[in-house]
């Protein structure tokens, strides 16, 4: 059985399912039981599972991360949520010095740290420098952390359940613009393996590797190019940023010889750069043209909507990059029109300001 639901309902469903299966799963974070329920993702959980297992917290991100670690060492599986990734930056000490290293620094005798940290990446309506940072590459850089970043509602549920029951610390990244994505989501204890990418489109002309919200823009571009000039691309949605599904990526590049990597973060030292480096070392001979990474230019997010317009990469940019790599001429006007005048909101469902 499955039900049509939004990404945020799928998160809610996964949390509820996990708490049903295992009484050791607890959920907390600023605003978790409040009337908005973290964009709907935690609505009703406190009513269902009680205030001992679902609770609000003080504005103490670093301490509450260490507290999650401590509880997890004694069998609790905490799921902690932050309405913006940026707020969690106060907790880098506990995350990296403790959570990531715990298993290693006691020679494997210290037990594991099965915590899940949900981080929401903001975009649009002037989120600006401190409410929209997409720092998955930081987390993915650190050995001992897993980093998961679903694009679709079904993946969100399957991957969140696997993250919660994984024995390592997992950063679970949710792009704010995906919360309304709707599809059929399986009922019950539905899990997807961590570390496995998904192939959303298949083709032999070019490999597009993408993540999180950029995959939505990629789908528009790839479908348009297919319709207009019969270009066929592989579209690999990473889903997991650490570990990365290298086999799927390398196999695809061996097949197509062309690689475009899309990243929601900044360009320099990006995950996109790492993917290109890895492919260059593993299948250099397959490349028919230089690989391309498409990420944000290396500067903080501006607030003014006049400035974000050229800051973020959209379907038309993806289409243009693909066309250039394949040496084809095509009008991208229809792709440019996709977003309409209000480029700084994901759709009518998004009622600013947050």
């Amino acid at each position, binding site marked *: 059985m499955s039900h049509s639901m939004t990404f945020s309902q799928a998160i809610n469903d996964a949390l509820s399912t996990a708490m049903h299966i295992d009484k050791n799963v607890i959920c907390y974070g600023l605003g978790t039981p409040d009337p908005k329920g973290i964009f709907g993702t935690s609505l009703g959980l406190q009513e269902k599972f009680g205030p001992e297992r679902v609770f609000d917290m003080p504005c103490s991100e670093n301490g509450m991360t260490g507290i999650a670690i401590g509880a997890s060492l004694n069998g609790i599986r905490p799921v902690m949520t932050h309405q913006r990734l940026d707020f969690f930056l106060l907790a880098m000490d506990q995350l990296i010095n403790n959570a990531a290293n715990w298993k290693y620094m006691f020679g494997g005798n210290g037990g594991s740290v099965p915590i899940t940290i949900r981080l929401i990446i903001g975009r649009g309506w002037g989120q600006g420098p401190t409410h929209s940072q997409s720092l998955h590459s930081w987390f993915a850089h650190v050995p001992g952390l897993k980093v998961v970043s679903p694009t679709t509602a079904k993946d969100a549920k399957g991957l969140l359940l696997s993250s919660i029951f994984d024995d390592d610390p997992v950063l679970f990244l949710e792009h704010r613009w995906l919360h309304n994505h709707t599809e059929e989501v399986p009922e019950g204890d539905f899990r997807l393996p961590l570390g496995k990418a998904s192939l959303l489109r298949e083709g032999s002309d070019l490999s597009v590797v993408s993540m999180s919200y950029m995959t939505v823009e990629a789908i528009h571009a790839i479908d348009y190019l297919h319709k207009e000039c019969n270009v066929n691309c592989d579209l690999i949605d990473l889903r997991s940023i650490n570990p990365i599904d290298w086999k799927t990526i390398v196999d695809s590049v061996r097949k197509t010889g062309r690689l475009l990597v899309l990243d929601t973060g900044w360009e320099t030292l990006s995950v996109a750069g790492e993917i290109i480096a890895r492919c260059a070392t593993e299948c250099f001979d397959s490349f028919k043209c230089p690989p391309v990474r498409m990420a944000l230019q290396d500067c903080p997010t501006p607030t003014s909507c006049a400035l974000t317009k050229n800051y973020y990469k959209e379907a038309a940019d993806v289409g243009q990059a693909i066309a250039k790599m394949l040496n084809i001429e095509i009008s991208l006007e229809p792709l440019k029109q996709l977003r309409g005048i209000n480029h700084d909101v994901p759709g009518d469902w998004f009622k*600013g300001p947050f």
Partner: protein
Amino acid sequence: MTVDKKTALELYSKMLLIRFCEESIAARYHSEKKMRCPTHLSTGQEAVPAAAGQALRSDDFVVSTHRSHGHYLGKGGDLNRMIAEIHGKKSGCSRGWGGSMHLIDRSVGFVGSTAIVAGTIPVGVGLGLSIKLKKTDQVSCVFLGDAATEEGVFYESVNFAVVKQLPVLFICENNLYSVYSHLKVRQPEGRSIASMVQGMGCSAVSGNGNDVAESYEKISTAVASIRNGNGPVFLEFATYRWREHCGPDFDNHIGYRSEEEFKEWKKKDPVEAFENKLLLDNVIDKSMIDELKSMTQALVDNAFELADRDEFPDFYDNSVFKEVIR
């Protein structure tokens, strides 16, 4: 009347400016859709910012939070540049790069407000350290909300300010909420923030943050003591935000607080209370009030008009960023 007439009028004018500015933003936010950034209004909390702005000198430093319009205006920050900033326009005080949550006007000592809770507390203490090193008699004032006292960096910063006896004034506006979370789910019931800070060795006083005269007196006393080299002071003022945490609407119906509670606090409207007091004490008459109000509204309306006519900043260009950062 405990404050002199001139001061009283200035306090009243500052409160009016903050109130009219915030309420004009609220009235236009959804209908115009031109202020496209998260915006935290200070309506209901005008007294403390007005009092602090009045008690501090313009060469004293202020740092603030996500809810900083009042602090900025109280300190004398440029109204037009703030409204332009919220509109993402070129003449904005942060060039449109920062928005409502990132205000600055260094010409009046407003060093900056940022959006990460407690983020500017150590910065304000660092400004205090610089004042001590440079041996001037300035004061560094740190605005914070009740929730900021839950962050580790708050304790680290207060501790250092006490150890080094720095010229820092901490002003905590306790409005009972952090977004939709009441104080009681975040801090032990019955423990006052001020007495906790007192326990850290910092002189601490609490007061009624909806009474602008009382706030002014308490802040002035603290500022004088700090200027005299007696070390940091922490002030906790009880107050209440009227509108939703972020955005222009009222949200008492969604269930995190009651309409009754809101109404109780609305009865303690800091602007109206002071206005009545001024009338009663014959400091001001009805016609002067009307005149002040229409003058203030005209200033605010003009700021919106200027912001609307102003250009947007140039399309984002990395070289511009590098030029500023270098």
